[in-house]
């Protein structure tokens, strides 16, 4: 038998299921309307192809959207929870029914592999609406009050465009709030398709409004005087700016910001699964994950073995066309993000860390970065402290559990952490010691609508998901 090798032929998911319009307006009061800012283009990061022209909402457009949400709040908040639930269930079902369309569109606009948008993002989006639909008529049992806050201004990032939309909109609506949501500048398309789904579900006009634009639109939205609640997911820098903007007002705020999670591998870990968890932790979604396990802390006694296994595994990652069903790592979302990843990686090298990238051929067009790890990293390196938000892993070692905890906690962030050990008692002890909103044990990047998510320190405040996620939208 010739060892020609098992070359997987291209297996592209068809694009024909999605229908991308040449231009999109804003979704205000249940209808698509023109924006009055300077329209911008959204591109496919895998090819740099321009996908559509997107309206930019200026201050006046934002004001109209907030007014529409305010008008709708009157009816929506007084509607019995059981009736609101029907709309949410309907939205959840439509998302499930149109899941392939949403997944393909998400991969085209964001650059993430179709297997992730298909098997992770969109199913969890649907599950999130199902989950919060169930709460809508049971709010009194949650213990956070039964009154909605009013109009929620929600600003979401580009890494999980539709999933972050679901995390924001589902609990807000279940609690009787109305929303004005601004999707990220580089990934507006699935939010606009979601607007269409709201129409399809006969959601009362104004309950969900979507305004597209960049930073200034977001500023206008969170700074709008008639907004009762601000929810933001994104960078710590912007989060701080938002906190400053709303300081001194009576707006409620939740922020879900950056992270620099430690994935701690002990010498008694199930090593093959730990390697899978490390790979999933940092290369899932090209590392564009706020809770990414971007620092691997590995016990010195197994460091060499784990690194060997990790590199071998990384060499099997398939980087390329996001729409190919066999792609493991897709495109970096934007030229700007690619630049930041390159910069920080170069700094890592300049600071003396050893760089290793998986041998893979990168496409000639689009924004790409190979799965990369750095060894000989210390706590003093910038690549061990700053969020790279890309497929770059910093490998550090430790000798004792106490050292592991000290290093894991030695970061301004505190969003997530991972522990790999076969010893149950150690897992429980570390979970108490790690200052992170989520601690995963012998797994990583597991998401469930019933599980609260949020951070310590500069990773933000407030929780999304689960019963805890209702608190931010009730009084």
């Amino acid at each position, binding site marked *: 038998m010739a060892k020609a090798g098992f070359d997987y032929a291209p297996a592209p998911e068809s694009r024909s299921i999605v229908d991308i319009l040449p231009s999109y307006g804003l979704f205000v009061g249940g209808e698509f309307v023109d924006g009055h800012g300077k329209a911008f283009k959204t591109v496919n990061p895998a090819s740099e192809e321009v996908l559509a022209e997107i309206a930019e909402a200026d201050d006046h457009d934002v004001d109209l959207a907030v007014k529409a949400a305010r008008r709708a709040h009157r009816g929506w908040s007084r509607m019995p929870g059981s009736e609101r639930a029907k709309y949410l269930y309907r939205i959840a079902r439509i998302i499930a029914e149109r899941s392939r369309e949403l997944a393909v569109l998400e991969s085209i606009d964001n650059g993430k592999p179709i297997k992730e948008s298909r098997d992770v993002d969109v199913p969890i989006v649907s599950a999130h609406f199902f989950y919060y639909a169930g709460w809508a008529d049971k709010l009194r049992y949650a213990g956070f009050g039964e009154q909605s806050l009013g109009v929620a201004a929600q600003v979401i990032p580009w890494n999980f465009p539709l999933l972050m939309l679901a995390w924001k909109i589902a609990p807000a609506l279940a609690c009787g709030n109305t929303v004005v949501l601004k999707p990220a500048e580089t990934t507006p398309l699935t939010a606009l398709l979601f607007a269409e789904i709201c129409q399809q579900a006969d959601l009362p006009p104004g309950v969900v409004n979507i305004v597209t634009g960049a930073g200034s639109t977001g500023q206008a939205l969170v700074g709008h005087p008639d907004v009762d609640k601000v929810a933001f997911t994104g960078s710590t820098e912007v989060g701080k700016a938002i906190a400053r903007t709303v300081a001194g007002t009576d707006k409620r705020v939740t922020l879900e910001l950056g992270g620099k999670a430690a994935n701690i591998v002990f010498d008694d870990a199930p090593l093959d699964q730990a390697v*899978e968890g490390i790979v999933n932790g940092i290369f899932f979604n090209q590392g564009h994950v706020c809770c990414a396990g971007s620092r691997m802390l590995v016990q010195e006694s197994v460091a060499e073995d784990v690194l060997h296994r990790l590199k071998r595994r990384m060499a099997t990652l398939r980087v390329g066309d996001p729409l190919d069903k066999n792609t493991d790592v897709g495109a970096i979302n934007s030229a700007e993000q690619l630049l930041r990843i390159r910069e920080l990686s170069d700094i890592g090298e300049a600071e003396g860390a050893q760089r290793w990238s998986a041998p893979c051929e990168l496409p000639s067009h689009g924004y790409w970065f190979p799965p990369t790890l750095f060894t000989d990293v210390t706590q003093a390196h910038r690549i061990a402290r700053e969020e790279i938000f890309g497929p770059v892993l910093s490998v550090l070692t430790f000798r004792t559990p106490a050292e592991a905890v000290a290093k894991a906690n030695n970061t301004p962030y505190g969003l997530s952490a991972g522990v790999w050990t076969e010893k149950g008692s150690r897992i429980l002890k570390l979970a108490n010691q790690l200052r992170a909103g989520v601690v995963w044990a012998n797994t990583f990047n597991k998401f469930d609508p019933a599980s609260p998510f949020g951070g310590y320190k500069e990773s933000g405040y407030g929780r999304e998901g689960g019963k805890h996620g209702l608190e931010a939208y009730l009084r």
Partner: protein
Amino acid sequence: MLDGMVTTESEVETTSIRDLDVAGSDSSLRRFLHGLPGVDQVGAEQRAAALGTRSIKTSAKAYALDLAISMVDLTTLEGQDTEGKVRSLAAKAMHPDPSDPTCPATAAVCVYPDLVATAKAALGTSGVKVAAVATAFPSGRAAMDIKLADTRDAVEAGADEIDMVIDRGAFLSGRYLEVYEEIAQIREACGSAHLKVILETGELQTYDNVRRASWLAMLAGGHFIKTSTGKIQPAATLPVTLIMLEAVRDFRESTGTMIGVKPAGGIRTAKDAIKFLVTVNEVAGPDWLDPDWFRFGASTLLNDLLMQRIKLSTGRYSGPDYVTVD
């Protein structure tokens, strides 16, 4: 095909056992086997499921189907087996698709020891091997001298490969040295025949046990590790095979010796077989994508592989009456 195996044979005896000198006693074996990294069940099953989502199309599918056919140990292990049945199975093994000479032959025919001579005569010089299940298959519950006699019997009748079962009772009660020595003795009784060691993973229950039994069998000199007899459910699952592929990969890295893997039982569709090949490719590596190093113990699988092969070349799905029932 034999070249690779000849090298291995000497390596098993010289490198692995001496370098990993762990087989001195039950306790040294225990220390070694229990010192292997554990297997997290959830993680292992998740990895297997992820590999199962690979989409294998067109040229890759054609490659995989032909490779899978060439890896089949076409098996009949029933009380009702007769010489006639074995002869028709042999005919099928040599020419799985009589209408297409480009269709590869299977790797072997797998029978009970008393039918080895029949199979051998029918297969002649075709290159298709004869594998015999021995050692009081499938339960393995017999005295050692009977197991040895069973093995010698099959080898003398012309078996190229012996598929033995381990004593699961001994393994589960921690008598690792007993299992080790049993495998080593059978290996000796095999002479030049190749030894596949059936772990019967359905009875070992945990992935930790599967990993330990795999290492035990490799240390004791097995050429192949095989999941199941096919008589116990569950038989060859993808996660179990994944664990065994990790074991042979790690064993080669520590000893230089390459061991084959044979999932057997329960793999019935071409789609499933392709998932196994993807797992071989991405876990053990492309070196194992070869009938010398990976086999499918199966009977009904072959027809589905053939039907998919015909469909791929003609664009039409002809149905079960267009492949032979044997």
